[in-house]
Structure formats: structure tokens, C-alpha cells
């Protein structure tokens, strides 16, 4: 929200410098967004909550409260106005549920011309171009009070009526910007004699806009369902000063306040006569009462503020104190505060006007609660450390990828770019790109890893079911199987690789191994891992025997170990030392390890016999 300092000073008087005023605004909730320059305009951040902060008076009010000074309201019409004669009345018909209030006045004998310099200067400082005195007054009051107003040339209305309704298919309107908009049946309009004249709460039409020839006009101030205005403006892609106010919850009471102010200015600057027309307001909103309990204020702030301070802050923000006792105040919220929901919002008002800078700090004094950290999180940190110990480099890559027609892949419905419009089903492709990139930059012999989630979709009862999978992926520029063996050994996990290259732990597939990468499900690793590396306090004395085997080329190491596992042998472990491809067979050199006390020769005989019988494997020696 732009606040020209010259305009602000109409409503609040202060000796403070622009820098100091900006600092005060920042403290109370309107942060200085763009750095101060010598334009005399403060650019303050608006957080989409306070509809009253899209007005100079709204911001001035809070500044006056913060600086403990008075808010000066501008001169406005306070006289009751004559009612327009029935023959000149403009009938108002509301045929859409989106309208809370539609207040209108008829203005006759307008002398359309140039606005006075003070009016033009203020508008231009804010960033709105001067058009003519009538249009400028409507814009001025909109920025001053935060309530959009609209003026239509009576001579251009097809009939002496305005109907507010949804657009019909095929209707269109040329806006004051000169663009023709094709309307859909979700858009609300002002029409006259069946002709659309204004897109309600969004933008006016060119046909009924005030021009040099206008003498009589109808002035309206409307309050609409802000969520509908928001949807309409985004759909039509029209964002302007009117929309940015009408898409927030404005108080309907502002309609009459804005009309009174515009009435005064039209009388003063355009020599006009203003008459009451029709005010559609079927369900007036009543002010809401809240209880401000001192104990809750103390509980949330840790302060014991004097009652006088509390009351003066609330009154300066225009809360009305309707009752009080030793425990609490009963207050009515000001009409323009459509954001207030609960008692804590009043407490927020008190504390921010009191200035957060004045809050002391105080440490927690309650006992430390139970630890509810899931074990998988601690375990994944352990995995990171084990992989770094191996010399692996951790990566974090984006889970957003380009869609690839995999039916299990989740495609996002509204992504801005096509190369990031789906969720990854695997981390491996991105990691392999990184390895390729490394080798382009002459970084070779490298292992990288990532721990994160992959995503997939399935269906249950015709509804999509979205799943997340916690995975570890390790990708190598050479081979990956040694890294896998080292990692699982550090976790105390025994594993095997089956013929489809699943990593099998305790009979369960827990991952996949490929030539230069492997993927593991971390939750399964957690189940099977040992908490500590196995430390043995004795040096082991074992006997090893190497067996050189000639193996048919249809068999794999997994087949050999599967066969061996069908019999109970007494060896502690078996490993493959080397593997050579011969012309018609493969030569596997296996090393068996026994505890020193075993009769190894007898065991070796049994092993060779079993391998010969089951798999037709011969010994080379």
C-alpha cells in the first residue's frame, strides 16, 4: 500500500521524519517494503488481512494510535440529503446472491472539468492518473477510505434502472481500458435495459463512463462477496485498485461513509446537487462484541499492563468499551475490522500498539517434554554418516521432474513449466545426470548419494491413492556393489542378491542393485539393522580354504549360495574372490572360512559333492 506522506499528514500530525514514520508503521504491522527514497511516498507491505489498511485513513488511524496522537477525519457531508423524485429515480434490482449492499445517490448538475491541484497531486503521488474531477473524486475517496465508488452517466443508461445479475452466455462489454471482455455466466454485472454497463466490483464499462458531456450521474458504492470477486478477477485476468479492495472483506458500513465523503467533494468541487436514490442492504451487519479478559492478556503477553493503557489503546483503535469489571472489558469491534475473529486478535492489537520492542524475553520454565522423534529420522542421519565415511558425496535434488507417461507417476495439475510438472518415481536419473556432469568437469571415480522421498500413485475403489517412499539411492561413476556391501556390513545386515538383482534381507526384497547404482528402502533397513557395529574383543583365528569351481554359464553366484543353503554346513562365511569367464564355463574362486577347530577336509568334500549333485559344478583342482 502506497502512502504519500503529504496525504497522510491530512489525518495525523507528527514531527517524525519519514524514516521514523516508516519505522513506526513497520512495528505496528505495515512493514516498509521498498527502501525510502525522496519521492515522499512510503511503500508498505500489505499481508492480505486488513481490508481497512488499503486506505490512507486506515493506516493513519493505526499510526495515530501508535504515536498516541489524534486521528483527524476529513470534512464530509453530514446533512440529510433530499430524496430523488419518483420520476427521476433509478430503480435498483438485485438478482444475484453476491451483493451484500448496493448504495446509490443521484448527482445532478455536475460541471465536469479539471481537478484542483491538491487533488491531482495526491492521486499522482499515489500512482493514479487524473482523468476529470468526477472520476478523480471517486478514485480519491477509494484510496482515502478504502471503499471503491463508481459513477455512471445517467444519459447513457438504456433505462432508468440498474439490474445486478450474472452475465448471460454471449454477452460482452468494452471496459474503460478499451478492451472488450467476453463474459461467462459466473461473472456478475451491472446492467441497464439488458445491456451490461459494469463488471461488478472489477471494472467499469466505457459506454456509461463519465465524460466531458456528463451532467447527471448515478454514484454507487457496493459491497460484494469478496471470494466471488476474487475468482472473477483472476478468471478475467483483471487486477486493479478496485479489485484489490473488493477481493477482501470490506465492511458494508463503508458504503455510506464513502458516499458521504464523495457527496461533500462533488458539491464543493463540481457544483453538484446530490440526492438519495436507493440503498439495497437487506441484511445489515451488526457489530460483534468481544470480551477482553485481563488474565488472558497477561497469559499471552506475560505482562501486567495498566487498565488505563489497555483502554486507551483499544479506544484509539475505535473499539467501543461497552462494559467493564475487575476481570474483563466488554468491547464492540470497530465496523472496519472485518479481520477480527477471536479475543487473541484484540490482545494482538494491544501488544502491537504497545510496541513489540517493549516486550522483555523470558525462557521456558516448564519441564522438558517426552521425545517424540521418530526413529527413522535418527536412522537416516546414521546412514548419511556411514555413506560419508565411505567417501560418498551427499546430493539433494528436486523431486519435481518432467512427466514421462509412466502410469504410476504423479503428474501435477497446475505446474507452471512442463519440465517440472511431475513427482519423481526414482532419484536415480537426476543423480546419474550429476555423475555425467562431474565427468564433464573431469571429476571421476566418485560416489554420490541422496536420501529422500519418491512418489507414486495407484488406485483403490477407482480413487487415486498417493504414496511416498523413503529411499536411499547411491550412484557411482564406476561400480556400486562394494559400497552396498560396506554399508550393509556397517549396519550389521546380512543380505543376498537374487537373480533379478533385488537386494534380499531376511527373505524380503529391500532394494535394487544395478551396475552403477543401488536403491534401498530406509524403513526396511531400520528394521533389520543392528544399533552398533559389531565389535569383537578377541582376534579370531580361523581357517580358510579356497575352492576353484567350474560353473555352467547358465548359473550365477546366487544359484551356488542357494544350493549351499539347502544343507547345514559349519563354515562361518563364504565369499567370492574372483570370477573368470572361460570358453564354455565360468570359473568362480570361492573362499570358505571355518572356526579353527573344524575338520575342514571333510567339509570341503561335502561341499563339492553337493555342488556336483545339484548343479553339476566341478572343482578345477
Amino acid at each position: 500500500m502506497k502512502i504519500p506522506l503529504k496525504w497522510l499528514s491530512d489525518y495525523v500530525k507528527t514531527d517524525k521524519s519519514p524514516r521514523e514514520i516508516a519505522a513506526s508503521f513497520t512495528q505496528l504491522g505495515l512493514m516498509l517494503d521498498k527502501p525510502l527514497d525522496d519521492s515522499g511516498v512510503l511503500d508498505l507491505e500489505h499481508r492480505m488481512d486488513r481490508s481497512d489498511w488499503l486506505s490512507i485513513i486506515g493506516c493513519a488511524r493505526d499510526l495515530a494510535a501508535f504515536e498516541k496522537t489524534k486521528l483527524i477525519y476529513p470534512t464530509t457531508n453530514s446533512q440529510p440529503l433530499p430524496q430523488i423524485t419518483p420520476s427521476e429515480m433509478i430503480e435498483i434490482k438485485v438478482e444475484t446472491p453476491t451483493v451484500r449492499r448496493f448504495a446509490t445517490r443521484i448527482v445532478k448538475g455536475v460541471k465536469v472539468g479539471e481537478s484542483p491541484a491538491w487533488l491531482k497531486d495526491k492521486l499522482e503521488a499515489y500512482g493514479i492518473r487524473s482523468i476529470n474531477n468526477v472520476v478523480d473524486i471517486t478514485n480519491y475517496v477509494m484510496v482515502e477510505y478504502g471503499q471503491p465508488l463508481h459513477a455512471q452517466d445517467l444519459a447513457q443508461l438504456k433505462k432508468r434502472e440498474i439490474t445486478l445479475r450474472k452475465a448471460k452466455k454471449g454477452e460482452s462489454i468494452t471496459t474503460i481500458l478499451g478492451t472488450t471482455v467476453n463474459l461467462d455466466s459466473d461473472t456478475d454485472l451491472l446492467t441497464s435495459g439488458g445491456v451490461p454497463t459494469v463488471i461488478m466490483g472489477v471494472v467499469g464499462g466505457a459506454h456509461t463512463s463519465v465524460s466531458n458531456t456528463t451532467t447527471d450521474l448515478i454514484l454507487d458504492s457496493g459491497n460484494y462477496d469478496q471470494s466471488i470477486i476474487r475468482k472473477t478477477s483472476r478468471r478475467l485476468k483483471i487486477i486493479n485498485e478496485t479489485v484489490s479492495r473488493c477481493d477482501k472483506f470490506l465492511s458494508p458500513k463503508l458504503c455510506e461513509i464513502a458516499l458521504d465523503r464523495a457527496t461533500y467533494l462533488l458539491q464543493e468541487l463540481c457544483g453538484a446537487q446530490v440526492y438519495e436514490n436507493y440503498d439495497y442492504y437487506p441484511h445489515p451487519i451488526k457489530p460483534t462484541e468481544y470480551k477482553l479478559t485481563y488474565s488472558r492478556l497477561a497469559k499471552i503477553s506475560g505482562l501486567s499492563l495498566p487498565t488505563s493503557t489497555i483502554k486507551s489503546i483499544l479506544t484509539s483503535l475505535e473499539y467501543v468499551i461497552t462494559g467493564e469489571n475487575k476481570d474483563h472489558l466488554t468491547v464492540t469491534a470497530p465496523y472496519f475490522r472485518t479481520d477480527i475473529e477471536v479475543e487473541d486478535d484484540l490482545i494482538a492489537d494491544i501488544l502491537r500498539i504497545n510496541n513489540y520492542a517493549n516486550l522483555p524475553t523470558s525462557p521456558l520454565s516448564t519441564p522438558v517434554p517426552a521425545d517424540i522423534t521418530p526413529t527413522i529420522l535418527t536412522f537416516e542421519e546414521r546412514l548419511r554418516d556411514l555413506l560419508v565415511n565411505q567417501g560418498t558425496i551427499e546430493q539433494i535434488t528436486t523431486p519435481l521432474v518432467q512427466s514421462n507417461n509412466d502410469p504410476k507417476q504423479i503428474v501435477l495439475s497446475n505446474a507452471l513449466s512442463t519440465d517440472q510438472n511431475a513427482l519423481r518415481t526414482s532419484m536415480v536419473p537426476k543423480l546419474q545426470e550429476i555423475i555425467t556432469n562431474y565427468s564433464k568437469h573431469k571429476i571421476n571415480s566418485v560416489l554420490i548419494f541422496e536420501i529422500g522421498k519418491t512418489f507414486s500413485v495407484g488406485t483403490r475403489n477407482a480413487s487415486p491413492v498417493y504414496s511416498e517412499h523413503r529411499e536411499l539411492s547411491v550412484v557411482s561413476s564406476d561400480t556400486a556393489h562394494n559400497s552396498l556391501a560396506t554399508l550393509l556390513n556397517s549396519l550389521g545386515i546380512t543380505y543376498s542378491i537374487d537373480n533379478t538383482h533385488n537386494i534380499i534381507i531376511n527373505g524380503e526384497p529391500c532394494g535394487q542393485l544395478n551396475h552403477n547404482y543401488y536403491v534401498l528402502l530406509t524403513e526396511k533397513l531400520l528394521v533389520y539393522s543392528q544399533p552398533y557395529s559389531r565389535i569383537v574383543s578377541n582376534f579370531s583365528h580361523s581357517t580358510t580354504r579356497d575352492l576353484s569351481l567350474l560353473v555352467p554359464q547358465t548359473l550365477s553366484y546366487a544359484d551356488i549360495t542357494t544350493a549351499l543353503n539347502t544343507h547345514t554346513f559349519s563354515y562361518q562365511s563364504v565369499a567370492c574372490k574372483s570370477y573368470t569367464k572361460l570358453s564354455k564355463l565360468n570359473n568362480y574362486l570361492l573362499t570358505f572360512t571355518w572356526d579353527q577347530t573344524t575338520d575342514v577336509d571333510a567339509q570341503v568334500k561335502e561341499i563339492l559333492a553337493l555342488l556336483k549333485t545339484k548343479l553339476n559344478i566341478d572343482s578345477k583342482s
Partner: protein
Amino acid sequence: MESQIKQIQTEFTADLAKVNSQSELDAIFLKYLGKKGSTTNILKSLQGLTLQDKKLYGPILNKLKTSQESAIKAKSKELENRKTGKLEDDLTIPGTVRSTGHLHPTTIVIRELNSFFRYHGFSVQDGPEIEDVEYNFRRLNLPEGHPATDLQDTLFVKEPQWLMRTQTSSIEARVLEKYQPPMRVVVPGKVYRNETNSATNTSFFHHYQGFVVDKNINIQNLKEILTKVHQFLFGKAVVLRFRYKYYPEVSPGMGVDMQCQFCKGKGCTVCKYRGWIETLGSGIIHYNTMKASKIDPDIYTGYAFGMGLDRLVMNKFGIPDIRKLYGGELVYA
């Protein structure tokens, strides 16, 4: 006998010092420890001594022999090293760096923050990245069509219910529902926004969330932990500004800024001439959020805070472009 031993020792040491080649060393070996060497001979002469003398001089002569053997061995190694010129002989030459594994910078910063908060009694939590609009918005006091939804551009999986979480406070909503107070929790995590990528913004980045629910939690407790965590991250001299700032899920809400450490608040390119850098948002957990999580807001109060992690990581490690941080383009020097 003693003078003989001493003489052999002295001669040996002098001869050894003059040796400059293996062949010269071999000659020394022959001279003292060979078949006719002087040390060998004097050992042989032990036989002719009395038992008493044997007992006395025997150990001394053996010691002489072994010391000469090891001196020759050491000299031999020295000569060998001299030939190949091993780097470690000149210790003023720096050693070679071996490559090691590395954690990602974001992991490092998350671990530092986790360790700070664990010290203060916090647990660490996590949750789904594909989130239900109920936990990402509704529980956090953002009903449908609320203008504050404009503050975040949402990436949808399936409108209107399923989306990629836009903030880690969705996990706060889940934890508040699942566990009973008292609780202290932090949530480091990935979040997603529908943005076009640039040097400073990506569709995917990291948040660090924290919250406490207990009896009599107040805004002074919040100010205290936030002051402490800033001092932890940026040093004790950090200058902070606490101001009112609106977030739907807290009331009263609070924004924290730190004075730009480069220009000390005067304004520079680093802080975009504002003098202050926004670090995080926070506040007292909204009454409606507590009620929606079935926690009695009259008995319990709580505070919550959340910060973007990536700018912090980039500043700590001197990485200017967020796309390099998550694009595998980090090289470890």
C-alpha cells in the same frame, strides 16, 4: 675390556657417520659384524674369560652387537630413502589431501539447528509432502477463498484437496492433532511453491518450523528462543527487530528481522537497501488452530515459528544461486 668396548663403540659411530652409500655400509658391516669383525672377535673372546667376567661383560657385548645391527639397518633405510627422495623426509612440504565424503550444506545447517533445539528439549518431526488441504490451510486458519492464500502459490496434485505442502506448518497441524501437550517440536523439511525458477527462487526449497505447546506459554518465551537461535546462527552481536506481522495461523503474529551485517543497517546491495533482512515469521498459535486440533486453548497456549532455510545455507557457504545448491553443481575444495 671396558676400554676396548668403548673404543669399538667410538670407532663404529665415527665410521658410520662417514657412510654415503650401501657399499660403504656393507664394508662397515664386515668391519665390525663380519666373521672377522671387531665386535664379533670381542664377543668370541668372552669364551676365555672367567665366569664372573662372562656374566658381567656378556650382556654388555650383546647389547653392543644389537645396537650396531640396528644402527646399520637404520642407515641402510636412510640411504634408500635418500635415493627415492620421499616427500615425508622434508616435513616442510605440505601433505597431499585425500578426498573424503561430504554432507550436503543444507543437511549441515539442519543438523546445526536440530542440535540447538534438541539442547532446548525439542523433538524432531516429519510428515507427508503430498498434503491434504485440511492440514496445509484449513487447520492453520485459512478457510477457502481467504485472500491470504494469495501469499503462497500452491502446486496442486489434484484440486481442490491434494497439493504439495507449501509450508512445514502442515506438519505442525498433524502433530498438534496426534499428540497431547506438553510438546516442543521442530520440523525441517522440503516445501513446494508454484514459482518460476530464478537465482533466488525455486519451486522446491526448505523450511525449518518449530512450535511449543504447554501451560502458560507467552510471547516473551517466543521472543527469547528466537533471540537465542539468531545469536546461535549469526553471533551474539546480532541486532534484531521484532514487529507485528500477520500470518493466518498465529495471533498475535510476529516478524523478526536482523540488521544487515554488511552495512550495519545503512542499506546496501546485500539487504536491497532496506538495512534489515527478514529471517522468520512466528506468533502465538491461533486460538482456532488449537481448537481444530482439539487442544483446549484456555488451558494450553503455544508459539510457532518458521524460517526459510536456503538463503541461510547459501549465505553460510557463499553459494549465490539456489539452482546450484540443488542441481548437483557443488564442488568441494
